[in-house]
């Protein structure tokens, strides 16, 4: 694997280079802000359609300006700060929520020719460059670090409000986010096995040379990534954070005016970024057939946005279809299904890679690997079932005292 850096930054820096970097950054910002407005409208319109309603229809053609109208309205709302709030942290929390959402988009390659082993450089004002704001060699790790920082936004918003519902919502939300972050990271690890690099650009190049990672890693990590990503975004069916029937609005109950708008924006911005990262890691990024040679540079952009749209549609579709998980089901899914599955699958793929390297026959290795995994899983489920039986027995014997102590446990 060649570690190709962005050719724009390799040689000396002159005014053109600085301007190109600034242009890319500016376009990325504009793109994100416009995309967020359109995505909010898209979600409302689509979910209305699925529920046989009309949805926003008055502001602009097909209500497309509805988000803008809502945003402007929020600018003119009074900003309230609860007396019991921690003033500094209360003001800091929206920043911590939205800045990672912005910055994570910087490492996503949105265009460039990756077909037929192309390395994705485009020519811009006589310089060749990548169509992404920056390409740090540890790009995907950087994305994971940013989503770790985003936990603080939620946690501190709830803590600093000085109110009960936000506190409960934020503790729940941060526990959910860290649980699924673990599964997310382990699902991504399988991608590194087939790509051999942590840079988003190299991962896309690697996929254009062989096959898309969704197939190269055997679909399971992709499924885990999708589920864990939905939970990480606090999207339905994992939206326990703002389960309005139990927690009012969750961590942002006390926020109003533009500070609330920032939380709202960061939620949808994270949705776009997560879709873009999923496309980059598993679906070949901007790769796709170049149909016409005349405006060849448009096609990668088109394929990229088409793939991102498919993810956004899936997120909305999930919301319209599935009821919300219970908290115990949520934690069970994360820790008892996704993480063991991700670890097991990771080891299986690693073993297959090593076997292929050493020239062992593939099919027996696959069979043995699957058998070992299956054996481990059945041993595990047997142990757990036995533990459960013992626990039930124990509970039967000491029903009175357990009942007494269980009601004494403070449930948060």
């Amino acid at each position, binding site marked *: 694997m060649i*570690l190709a850096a962005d050719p724009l930054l390799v040689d000396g820096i002159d005014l053109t280079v600085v301007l190109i970097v600034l242009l890319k950054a500016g376009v990325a910002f504009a793109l994100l802000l416009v995309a967020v407005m359109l995505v909010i409208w898209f979600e409302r319109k689509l979910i209305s359609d699925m529920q046989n309603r009309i949805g926003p229809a008055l502001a602009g053609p097909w209500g497309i300006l509805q988000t803008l109208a809502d945003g402007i309205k929020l600018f003119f709302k009074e900003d309230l700060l609860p007396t019991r709030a*921690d003033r500094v*942290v209360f003001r800091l929390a929206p920043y911590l929520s939205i800045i990672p959402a912005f910055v994570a988009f910087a490492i996503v390659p949105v265009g460039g020719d990756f077909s037929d082993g192309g390395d994705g450089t485009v020519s811009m004002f006589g310089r060749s460059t990548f169509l992404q704001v920056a390409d*740090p*060699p*540890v790009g995907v*790790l*950087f994305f*994971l*670090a940013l989503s*770790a*920082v985003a*936990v*603080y936004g939620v*946690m*501190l918003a709830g*803590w600093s409000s*000085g109110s009960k519902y936000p506190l409960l919502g934020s*503790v729940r939300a*941060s*526990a959910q986010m*860290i649980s699924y*972050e673990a599964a997310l990271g382990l699902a991504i690890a399988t991608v590194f096995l087939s790509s051999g690099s*942590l840079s988003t650009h190299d991962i896309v190049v690697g996929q254009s040379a062989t096959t898309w990672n969704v197939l190269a890693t055997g679909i399971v990590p992709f499924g885990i990534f999708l589920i864990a990503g939905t939970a990480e975004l606090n999207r339905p069916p994992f939206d326990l954070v703002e389960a309005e029937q139990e927690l009012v609005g969750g961590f942002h109950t006390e926020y109003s005016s533009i500070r609330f708008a920032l939380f709202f924006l960061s939620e949808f911005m994270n949705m776009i970024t997560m879709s873009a990262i999923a496309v980059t890691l598993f679906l070949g990024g901007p790769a796709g057939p170049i149909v016409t040679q005349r405006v060849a540079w448009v096609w990668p952009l088109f394929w990229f946005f088409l793939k991102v749209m498919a993810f956004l549609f899936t997120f909305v579709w999930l919301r319209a279809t599935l009821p919300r998980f219970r908290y115990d089901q949520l934690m069970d899914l994360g820790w008892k299904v996704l993480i063991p599955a991700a670890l097991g699958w990771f080891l299986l793929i690693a073993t297959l890679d090593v076997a292929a390297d050493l020239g062992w026959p593939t099919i027996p290795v696959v069979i043995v690997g699957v058998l070992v995994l299956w054996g481990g899983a059945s041993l595990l489920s047997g142990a757990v079932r036995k533990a459960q039986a013992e626990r039930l027995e124990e509970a039967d014997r000491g029903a009175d005292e357990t009942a007494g102590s269980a009601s004494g446990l403070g449930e*948060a």
Partner: protein
Amino acid sequence: MSTPAIFAAVTGFDPLTGGEFLVAQNIAFAIMAITMLVSAVRMVTTGNVVHAALYLVIVLAGAAGIFILLGAEFVGVTQVLVYIGAIVVLFLFGIMLTKGSFGADDGVGGERRGIAAMVGALVLAVMAAALLDTFRDAELSRAEPSLTADVADLIFSRYIVPFEAISVLLLAALIGAIVVARGD
């Protein structure tokens, strides 16, 4: 201080890197170092535990920034991922386990400040001695930042025993916490 020395300090003459001028790096380092120092002092002087944890986050972020500045980006990003993303979150959950820690708590360790300062000074002395002893003559390779692959090669050759020991250590920590949590 003589004029060349002042000139060297201002423009970033660095004897460790073979006498090149590193203005931008030194300015970035100065900003991060000062931020870290101020936050570290605030961390031990603030009366609010959650604020103290947040100042710790700033110190750790500064350390990550310095790692990246020195070319060790994998270590730097890992610093954010593990320390800020996991360990301080663990601290915050630990704080939330306690009763009544909202708002300023003036009684935080007030009477033991002297001993704490002494321990701090001792740790600083030991760390400084160890670092100076190990890296006194080490040159910083600015031309080639250390790649993730280099880190991996080191872990899986020279540091393979510590690597396996870490897993046992983490397991012990988890089992300890579970035993405490269950109260048996």
